């Protein structure tokens, strides 16, 4: 349709002025000098030969130069059809299970990058151990097997299946035994698969084999109560806890769970209600549990049993046969005292023993019966499934195999060729077995001897379920497609046993739909889906049946006396050796994890090594110093390890951690430390980890890679500690409340209009376990630097746990020097007796000072204050003068001495494309020459704020959790907005116990610490 409407661009056009008409004729406003160009020297002139050659030369040269640059080819495949749930840049969380703990797995763009506790987890309530935090890294371990192996070479699954099935059939037909050896199976579905397998091959049997077993407890319960179970302990219900050698906050049964229970009776909440449990620890080596005790009495390994007997005597008022006097008068007094306390707390008392000797556990049971602990602090009727291993069964298997009775052995999560005390026996036994199958995902020591390796999925690639304690079921679901050509062990077993269902996912779901969902009040497909979202079901616990003690306590006491006499070391070079599991490497299965190798031991702060822990005075007697290599010899086996001077170690004893000295763990763990398993021995039905050994100096020196080399706090106000008595008298004891000076500011206060992020750390809750360190490493892409660099004191951890020893002279606990607290290096050096030390753990990271000393000295403003109270690092601006680190009174800044992500001279095990997939894409990796430090997980703060903004609501308190806080089972760390007076953080900071480290400097740190309170009994002990 034509329109008569007239459009005009301007008044000139409308009015049609002559100038406009004239101008409008031309395309360009100004005439172009085309003619001149064409007629002049421009086109008309010839191109001189020289110019041509010049242009040609330049062109060819430039192109050649440009071609020299190798352009990297990045093969990226876009989503042709984008999965609905995957949005680049947005994390997804899936419920799953780690070792019986309900967890959440954080995935980014389809790859799991972090493991976090499920807040509903029955065991640890959302906390996770260092090992759980580090487990995600194992998924990306380049040492994993990429294909199944048959007789030492790569093979297809079909070949493997055919071979295994044929061999199994042959074994069955030939009347030979078939054995499945696994570490304790606590997954109902895995157990069902094994049961199905045994149904198909009646010659088969299942043996639970734990490197560090709890056979002693299980057998003792069988003797005492006729129940061969590992009970479920309730430390939260105990007002008085006596532990004889049980490291229950660390490696003993269920460390995280017990930490949560233990702290619930000792942290802020308990203290506010004027309540705190008392914990007395008798032990030889200094364990993390011992460091947290209110009173810790070092006793020799040989005396641990005697302490139990003495305790029994004191409580019962009788004298058992075989009672011996304790060597140390202090220990004897402590036993009497502990007995008094325990009796007073009858029904709220708990005695635990760490020994694997049945006799010791029988006496411990008897004590607990006297104290009325069963049904209160110990639950026999809802037992723990975590350890079911029976040492005798495995020893029997080895003997059977050596006799040639076994035709097939299948190893699931078990590595006896490394962790059984007699590796030669294992080798001989396996030599006589025709079919040896290992499900190991790496060619470990046992897999190396096997003829079939059917590599298992990593747990993050697996379906499954778990039940760590009775009545608590968790589900395991994969968060990534299998990375390599691996197959889940259960599926292999299903295929080999020709099960009707060979798909393990279907099997698991069937098992849940048919058996388990109903326990949690769920059913069918919807129930299954609900389960996958919540991650677990809980069943109401069974009520406790009354117990009667049927065991012969007298016989046990006599056995203890005999064992003790056997163990008591006599002679100058003889020493009582105790093997233990440390919190990082565990039984050795985590040896190939660099995060865990670099995690400092909570007590000794040693990384990348095991060592001989000796009492300083005893070491002096031996003539050895820290780092000197000693030879420990027993049972025809010897190792050479460096010495660690461990205050609090019982005289005449040495503690050595197992889990080291792996030969087939992979790049990281191979030949780190020495293998101490071969020192163990089998007697009285259990594998004992204590023995008499010879110790001698070798003359060599191997410096330990310690992250902390000064151990006393020099009496400085950095640590504040009071006794419970003082706290009850004055809740603000030990702090500066009411004694504050007037302070003056050089600077104007920072504006913090909306948020003021701060933190509160409860020294009474922190047990020093170090899970936060690994959580932080995983969240913030903190590089691993390796043993040599740690020796140069260059570890990169953003959070560290400072561990300080102090010494109470004459047993007095008062917190000032006049009354005897000895903490200074020089005074300590003069002390004769370093046995009775107390220990404090203090998490230390960037304090985000409001008057940050680092900020004023940076020449380029690379570290500045945010409007939310954070001290921030602009990595790209940093030129690396390190002045900020020098000027930081807390020494929490870490410098990138090398390009840790790409320096081939030292492998930090994260320098390959595959392993780097574990990195958190929200946090940049730092180049060399750049300073870094705790950012208070600023990426999490941003993500939380963004989420609230998108949902058009204010941020709620507790919505943002920083990584260290999140993994802390003890809830020692509270993070939040100090501008909100009702936030949990504000309340915590208002606690009378709050003090600030180095507050006298007026740097105005943003992290408030709460005074350590110890429920001491020292006065009475003296």
């Amino acid at each position, binding site marked *: 349709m034509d329109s008569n409407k007239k459009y005009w661009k301007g008044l000139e056009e409308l009015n049609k002025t002559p100038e406009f008409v004239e101008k409008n004729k031309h395309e360009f406003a100004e005439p172009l000098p085309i003619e001149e160009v064409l007629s002049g020297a421009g086109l008309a002139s010839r191109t001189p030969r020289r110019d041509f050659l010049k242009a040609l030369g330049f062109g060819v040269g430039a192109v050649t130069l440009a071609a020299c640059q190798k352009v990297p080819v990045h093969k990226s495949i876009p989503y042709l059809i984008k999965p609905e749930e995957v949005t680049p840049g947005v994390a997804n969380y899936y419920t799953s299970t780690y070792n019986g703990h309900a967890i959440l797995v954080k995935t980014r763009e389809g790859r799991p990058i972090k493991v976090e506790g499920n807040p509903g987890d029955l065991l640890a309530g959302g906390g996770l151990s260092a090992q759980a935090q580090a487990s995600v890294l194992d998924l990306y371990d380049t040492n994993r097997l990429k294909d199944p192996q048959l007789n030492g070479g790569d093979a297809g699954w079909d070949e493997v299946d055919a071979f295994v099935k044929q061999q199994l059939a042959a074994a069955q037909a030939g009347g030979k035994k078939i054995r499945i050896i696994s570490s304790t199976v606590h997954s109902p579905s895995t157990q069902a698969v094994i049961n199905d397998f045994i149904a198909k091959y009646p010659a088969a049997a299942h043996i639970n084999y734990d490197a560090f077993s709890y056979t002693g407890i299980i057998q003792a319960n069988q003797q005492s109560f006729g129940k061969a179970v590992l009970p479920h302990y309730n430390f939260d219900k105990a007002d008085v806890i006596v532990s004889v050698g049980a490291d229950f906050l660390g490696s003993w049964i269920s460390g995280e769970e017990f930490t949560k229970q233990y702290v619930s009776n000792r942290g802020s909440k308990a203290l506010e209600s004027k309540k705190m449990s008392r914990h007395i620890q008798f032990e030889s080596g200094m364990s993390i549990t011992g460091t947290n005790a209110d009173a810790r009495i070092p006793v020799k390994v040989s005396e641990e049993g005697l302490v139990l007997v003495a305790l029994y005597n004191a409580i019962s008022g009788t004298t058992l046969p075989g009672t011996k006097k304790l060597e140390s008068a202090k220990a004897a007094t402590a036993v009497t005292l502990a007995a008094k306390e325990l009796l007073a707390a009858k029904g709220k008392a708990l005695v635990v023993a760490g020994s694997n000797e049945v006799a010791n556990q029988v006496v411990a049971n008897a004590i607990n019966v006297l104290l009325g602990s069963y049904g209160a602090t110990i639950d026999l009727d809802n037992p723990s499934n975590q350890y079911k291993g029976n040492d005798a069964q495995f020893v029997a298997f080895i003997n059977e195999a050596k006799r040639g009775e076994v035709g097939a052995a299948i190893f699931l999560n078990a590595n006896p060729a490394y962790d059984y005390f007699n590796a030669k026996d294992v080798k001989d036994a396996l030599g006589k077995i025709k079919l040896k199958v290992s499900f190991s995902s790496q060619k470990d020591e046992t897999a190396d001897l096997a003829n079939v390796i059917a590599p298992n999925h990593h747990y993050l690639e697996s379906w499954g379920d778990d039940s760590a304690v009775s009545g608590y079921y968790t589900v395991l679901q994969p968060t990534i497609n299998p990375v390599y050509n691996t197959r889940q062990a259960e599926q292999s077993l299903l295929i080999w046993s020709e099960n009707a269902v060979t798909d393990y996912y279907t099997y698991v779901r069937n098992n849940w739909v048919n058996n388990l969902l109903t326990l949690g009040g769920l059913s069918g497909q919807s129930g299954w889906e609900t389960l996958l979202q919540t991650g677990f079901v809980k069943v109401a616990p069974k009520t406790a049946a009354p117990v009667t003690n049927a065991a012969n306590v007298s016989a046990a006491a006599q056995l203890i006396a005999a064992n003790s006499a056997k163990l008591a070391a006599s002679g100058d070079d003889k020493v009582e050796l105790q093997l233990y599991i440390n919190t990082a490497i565990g039984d050795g299965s985590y040896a190939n994890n660099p995060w865990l190798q670099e995690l400092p031991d909570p007590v000794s702060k040693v990384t990348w090594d095991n060592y001989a822990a000796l009492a300083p005075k005893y070491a002096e007697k031996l003539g050895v110093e820290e780092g000197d290599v000693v030879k420990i010899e027993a049972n025809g086996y010897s190792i050479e390890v460096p010495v660690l001077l461990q205050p609090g170690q019982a005289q005449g004893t040495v503690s050595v951690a197992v889990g080291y000295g792996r030969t087939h763990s992979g790049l990281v763990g191979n030949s780190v430390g020495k293998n101490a398993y071969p020192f163990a021995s089998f007697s009285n039905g259990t594998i004992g980890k204590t023995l008499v050994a010879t110790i001698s100096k070798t003359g060599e020196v191997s410096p330990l890679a310690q992250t902390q080399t000064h151990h006393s706090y020099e009496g400085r106000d950095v640590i504040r500690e009071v006794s419970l008595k003082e706290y009850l008298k004055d809740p603000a004891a030990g702090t500066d409340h009411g004694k504050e000076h007037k302070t003056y500011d050089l600077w104007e206060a920072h504006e913090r209009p909306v948020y003021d992020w701060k933190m509160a750390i409860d020294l009474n809750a922190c047990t020093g376990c170090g899970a936060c360190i690994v959580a932080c490493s995983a969240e913030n892409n903190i590089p691993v630097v390796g043993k040599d660099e740690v020796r140069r004191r260059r570890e990169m951890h953003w959070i560290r746990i400072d561990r300080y020893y102090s010494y109470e002279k004459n047993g007095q606990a008062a917190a000032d020097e006049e009354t005897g607290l000895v903490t200074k290096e020089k005074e300590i050096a003069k002390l004769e007796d370093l046995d009775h030390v107390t220990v404090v753990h203090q998490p230390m990271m960037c304090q985000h000072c409001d008057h940050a000393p680092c900020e004023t000295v*940076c020449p380029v*403003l690379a570290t500045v204050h945010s409007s939310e109270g954070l001290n921030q690092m602009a990595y790209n601006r*940093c030129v690396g003068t390190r002045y900020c680190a020098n000027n930081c009174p807390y020494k929490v800044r*870490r410098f990138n001495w090398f390009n840790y992500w790409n320096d081939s001279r030292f492998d930090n095990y994260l320098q390959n494309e595959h392993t780097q997939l574990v990195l958190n894409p929200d946090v940049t990796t730092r180049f*060399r020459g750049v300073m870094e430090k705790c950012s208070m997980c600023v990426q999490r703060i941003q993500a939380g704020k963004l989420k609230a903004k998108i949902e058009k609501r204010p941020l709620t308190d507790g919505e943002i959790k920083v990584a260290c806080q999140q993994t802390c089972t003890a809830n020692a760390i509270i993070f939040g907005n100090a501008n909100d007076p009702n936030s949990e953080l504000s309340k915590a900071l208002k606690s009378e116990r709050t003090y600030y480290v180095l507050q006298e400097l007026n740097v105005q740190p943003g992290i408030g610490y709460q005074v350590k309170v110890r429920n001491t009994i020292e006065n009475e002990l003296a």
Partner: protein
Amino acid sequence: MASHSESIIREPLITGKNITYAQITNEVLLPVENKPNKAWWIGFVVASLGALLWVVSISLTFWYGLGEWGLNKTVGWAWDITGFVWWVGIGHAGTLISAVLLLFRQNWRNSINRSAEAMTIFAVICAATYIVAHMGRPWLAYFTLPLPNQYVLWVNWNSALMMDVFAISTYFSVSLVFWYTGLLPDIATIRDRAVPGLRRRIYSILSFGWSGSVKTWQRFETVSLILAGISTPLVLSVHTIVSFDFATSLEPGWHTTIFPPYFVAGAIFSGFAMVQTLLLVTRKVLGLENYITMFHIESMNKIITLTGSIVGVAYLTEFFIAWYSGVEYEQYAFINRATGPYWWAYWSMMSCNVISPQLFWFKKLRTSIPFSWALSIVVNIGMWFERFVIIVTSLHRDYIPSSWVMFYPSWVDVGVFIGSIGLFFTMFLLFIRFLPSVAMAEVKLLLKSSSEQAKKKLIDHGHLDAEQVADYKDALKKYDSVDLADYETIK
């Protein structure tokens, strides 16, 4: 002014008989106009090997990162900043001699100012290399300059390091200009004596067309005075600002208000020691005994004693204040210095810096050339230890005991330091080969008034107080370049 007679009680600044202007030129330019001798070559080879070590060590550091050094999480500065402050301090004597002594009309400076200024420049170059090398990302060193940019990034004027960048660059540029201005008449002399050719062309360009007219000389004098005026505050300010690197921090052992004067005194102390180290050798090798006389040596030794004593008082004051402050961290820092794991560094510093210069109260020692030379080395060792003690023993044990560590240098640390000395001597040896090591023009000014021959003439003329002449003769005894026999005949 050259025609005025100077009092006989003043000791001569130029010795020797029948010295003429031409002779001064000939003697000073001897190494410049001739092929270098064996001694020079040996020195040069050794020094360049040192410089090569520097190149290797620095290259390793740049290529792999600062992890090549022995630093760690607690000790973020050690040999690097120790070396930096040491070199900057050494530079100070040159500026003091050329600027402050000029303003105070201390004519004896004329013989030594050229070498001292050259030393300043080379020392500041060595110091500047440390500034860049100690950075984690040296390729971004320009971030420390307030360059306008589209990111609206700016530098932190509160930071002492920022002030340092300006202090050092100002110092270097002013020193260079001052030194070069002074060189102009001497370069012109070389130019005029050179046969036509490349050499002449180069010196001709370098001389900026110096014509030697009265107007030129007059302007030259004025510029020298102005530059001296500009340089004088720098003598005080540069090391004051360097001391701010420590004094404005929170670190116990660093956070002290005494640092600026104490650092300046220490700088002059070490600078004069370095001038001694260099000139005592140069004087001998180049045969400049008549121009750099015992009077010069003794004067410098006196300054060393004075500044050494100031430094000693500062050390004691620090201890007193640490005790008096009642701050436990401060007290511990100082007890740790004297008795902690680095006690040997502290006591090396004390004995080298405080005790040894006191030996110069003995005239025999301060006029002994071998002793002066040995002591100048001792002082420089002591001053290196001073910076090491301040930096490392403060850092390695500060507030939080859990972070207390030890510092052990790597071979690269040592290589960079030894190498920087090699670099310094390489530059210095090239300097005496190509430029006059004594300011000829300025020395010539003194010939008519303050030389031994002028004074001898005065004595020969008579009309002098006999007692003063006796004093004068007495003073000549310490000179190693005076023939005392000439004076025996005089009553």
